[in-house]
């Protein structure tokens, strides 16, 4: 089973999903991310799905879970690079990815995380 690598860039954890994941791989990613966020105290998680041509309900739920888990651990998650065909399919499937923040690309995703970080530090 492949494990998706998690890279760290300052306060942000970066994940790029490029393979057609088995369900196990997705669950392992969820686990790994939770551990890494806790361990590093990261304030942001970026998941790049620009290479994913298929996002089904399992992957959708994984993204929602990661988002929720990260939030509890005081980190913001942003999913970037969703392909148009994927967005259309998810809407038709009825998956709203409630609570998952998205951005068009990595650049905007980083911007979103930066703003979230600022808001958080102001709020505390």
């Amino acid at each position, binding site marked *: 089973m492949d494990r998706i690598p998690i890279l760290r860039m300052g306060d942000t954890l970066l994940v790029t999903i490029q393979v057609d994941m088995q369900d196990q791989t997705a669950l392992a990613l969820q686990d790994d991310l939770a551990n890494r966020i806790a361990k590093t105290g990261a304030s942001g998680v970026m998941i790049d799905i620009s290479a994913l041509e298929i996002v089904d309900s399992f992957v959708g739920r994984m993204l929602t879970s990661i988002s929720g888990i990260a939030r509890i651990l005081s980190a913001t998650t942003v999913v970037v690079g969703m392909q148009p065909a994927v967005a*259309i399919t998810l809407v038709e499937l009825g998956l709203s990815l409630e609570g998952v923040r*998205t*951005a*068009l690309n990595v650049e905007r*995703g980083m911007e979103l995380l930066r703003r979230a970080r600022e808001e958080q530090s102001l709020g505390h």
Partner: protein
Amino acid sequence: MKSENQAIHTVLGADDASILEPWLDEAGAQDAGARRTMQAEATELLRLLRAAVAEGGDPTRLDGPAWAPVQDGLQTLSHARAARGQSAGDTSVFVLALKKPLFQLLQQQMPGDPAALSSALWSVTALVDKLAQRTVTTFQHAREEIIRRQQEELLELSTPVIKLWEGVLAVPMIGVLDSNRTQIVMEALLQKIVDTESGLAIIDITGVPTVDTLVAQHLLKTVSAIRLMGADCIISGIRPQIAQTIVHLGIDLQGINTKATLADALALALTKTGWRITRSPV
């Protein structure tokens, strides 16, 4: 090979001129140019028929593998004629005209045997009828396909995605918003959002006559898809009557920004994307 098939095989083996010329005469081309085109079509069809029969194809059943090239040939013929704007009738007249030279040749080949002649004539007629039937069916499909594609192109033309400003796209929706149009708009708009890296899309519904629950659903789907990708959306062109209908029907716009005019929507879009406009005396 059965004797009827043998008869067909023999009659098709006659020289080209004795089949093609009477065939074209019977089919009746309007002018020299049309006749030349028809000659090319006839030559090709004859070639395919000879090949199929030589392969051992059973003329009573056009669905065997030996007949596949003939099927394809008939389809090509239909499509070409459909594209030229001819009718299904013209095409079947052309194919049926092949009977005349074949009948004449059979009569010449079997002068003293009326029973065998009658049987061979029946085989030929059955075969040519099937060929004609096939062209008519594929012709209809070809026409439907052409019309469908033209409708799609028209639909695409009537919903252009316009770049209003850096990072701001607009789609003027004109006409009834059904699931077909929604699909096309979604695909075009989302792709443009990716290509131009635009963060905001304005969907203007000034040209949409009515908004009921179904139309609202289509709009909401489009907005959901835009938001899923990480962009935002403003719906503009909401006439007062439409606003009343929306409230009356209890449609939940789920926090989408709405504006009465495209101008207002643009102003909001600029603010949201960080633009400030100042005015100096000219």
